[in-house]
């Protein structure tokens, strides 16, 4: 490592976090879940195969994590749910980042747009997150697209805030002023000099958005405003089994366990990123 001066743009840039236990746990868990989600269907049972005769079974060698109220294999459903949760988490994080960064750059760099964007931002932030998501999700038929849309919108203002605050600092920094003086276009300054420096502060924020999105999808699906019934999403699995909760509590807890571990893994990665950013 070399000592960098404050005028050097790279001191804001992304640095790899140290390999710690938490990081290995986080990345490892997410990796396993991703592999299971992608290839699980090859060696697991059909998550939608009904077998009413085998309903509400406890863990056994036939059904490692038991069966649900319609006799479907819970392991197969939970693994299929991993695919949905990770997809929602990644998509929401990606969309929220893209739109949030664009708006944040505009607000931070073009001072005329700033009051407009920030007032709308404040308005959005004033609406409780889940309420906003639920309301947006109700605008069209339940689908993955709607869920991602509904969860993305409430997260954008958070990204806008962080991105704008960073841009406000960066635009005053010597290397941006130098680029400006040397005649670089605004677009070039934004993409070449400002954008790369947003990666480190935003990477932390993005992991939290991802965690919120995974929890949000489960919450929306649980109250019936998310993915359609029978979809093997963790929220739906809990929701459709809660009527059997007294007889077969594991049907609820199995999906809950996967959900909790996944969010723990995502936030562990986020925490490590934050530590390395500091």
């Amino acid at each position: 490592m070399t000592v960098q001066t404050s005028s050097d743009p790279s001191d804001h840039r992304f640095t790899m976090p140290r390999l710690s236990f938490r990081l290995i746990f986080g990345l490892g868990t997410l990796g396993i879940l991703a592999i299971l989600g992608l290839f699980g269907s090859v060696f697991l049972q059909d998550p939608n195969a009904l077998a009413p005769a085998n309903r509400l079974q406890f863990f056994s060698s036939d059904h490692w994590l038991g069966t649900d109220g319609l006799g479907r294999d819970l392991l197969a459903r939970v693994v299929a749910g991993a695919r949905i949760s990770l997809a929602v988490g990644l998509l929401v994080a990606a969309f929220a980042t893209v739109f949030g960064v664009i708006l944040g750059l505009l607000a931070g760099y073009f001072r005329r747009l700033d009051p407009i964007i920030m007032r709308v931002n404040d308005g959005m932030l004033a609406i409780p997150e889940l309420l906003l998501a639920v309301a947006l999700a109700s605008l069209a038929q339940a689908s993955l697209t709607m869920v991602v849309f509904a969860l993305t919108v409430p997260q954008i203002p958070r990204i806008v805030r962080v991105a704008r605050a960073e841009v406000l600092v960066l635009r005053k920094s010597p290397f941006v002023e130098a680029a400006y003086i040397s005649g670089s276009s605004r677009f070039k300054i934004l993409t070449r000099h400002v954008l790369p420096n947003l990666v480190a502060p935003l990477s932390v924020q993005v992991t939290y958005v991802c965690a919120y999105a995974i929890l949000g999808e489960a919450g929306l699906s649980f109250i019936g405003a998310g993915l359609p019934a029978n979809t093997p999403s963790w929220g739906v699995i809990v929701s459709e089994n809660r009527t059997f909760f007294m007889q077969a509590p594991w049907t609820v807890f199995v999906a809950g366990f996967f959900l909790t571990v996944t969010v723990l893994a995502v936030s562990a990665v986020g925490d490590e990123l934050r530590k390395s950013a500091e």
Partner: protein
Amino acid sequence: MFPFILKRLASSLVVILIVAMFVFGLTAVSGGDPAVIFAGDDPSPERLEAIRERMGLDRPVPVQFLLWLQTIAGGDFGTSFFTGRPVLTLIGQRVEPTIVLSLYTIVMSILVGIPLGAAAALRPGGALDRFLSGFTSLAFALPGFIAAYILIYIFAVELRWFPVQGYQPLSEGLGRTLWSLTLPAVTLSLIYVGLLARTTRAAMIGVLAQDYIRTARSRGANTYRVVVHHAFRNGLNAVLTVIGLGIASLLSGVTITETVFAIPGLGRLTVDAVLNRDYPVVQGLILIFASVKIAVNLTIDLLYRVVDPRVAQ
């Protein structure tokens, strides 16, 4: 202080106006023709036209917005598509459980979270501090409804200390109400306790390193006096911020918790209204929740000034 309040009130009004525009736009893009929904089964075209005219739906959209704003400002939030009853009446019927549940949660979280954080700050890296850090991570990752089921399983199904679900109104007596709301309040408190404790801890560690803490100790103050009389007030502003954030996030949390515990509050009303596409109710709820959130933020900003005389300058 007074000019500050006026200024903040003005900017809060702007924010509410933006929320109102958003809420209005929500109905506009929802696609359904309010007149059709409002008119009920199989209306005649003349009747639809009459309703449209009465609701101002034949006017340009900005005019419609202003008309709508006018009725809202007059305290008329419209009529539920689904039940045909005024939105404010519906909300009024459901507000009690949510208010009691929210207050119960806030009080519980403050009573547990702040002392926990302060104690952890006295020994950073100690056993309590490590427990707190693990607890906070877990509380954040544990979805509200799963936490609820775990609590129900342990305390309602196995130990039978509390009811599995349901709500006892205040008219049955405060004790019964609190008894019915204990598990929901604990569910909602989990994240909040973690958040409050973590913030209190960070604030206290910062404050305890200050010179004036050493001065207090040089006067013979014991740990209790140092923490309660000297450190806590100085860390309070950071804690206030989190209490404000927490109240705001509670408004999201009640939606799910009230569903799990079958509590007839505003959260449950929200879910029902959304599932029924009952937009006047959804609009009313969003406006009210947003107003509460803005009012909480305003109050917290004023409290900063009460706590720290330097902020006012």
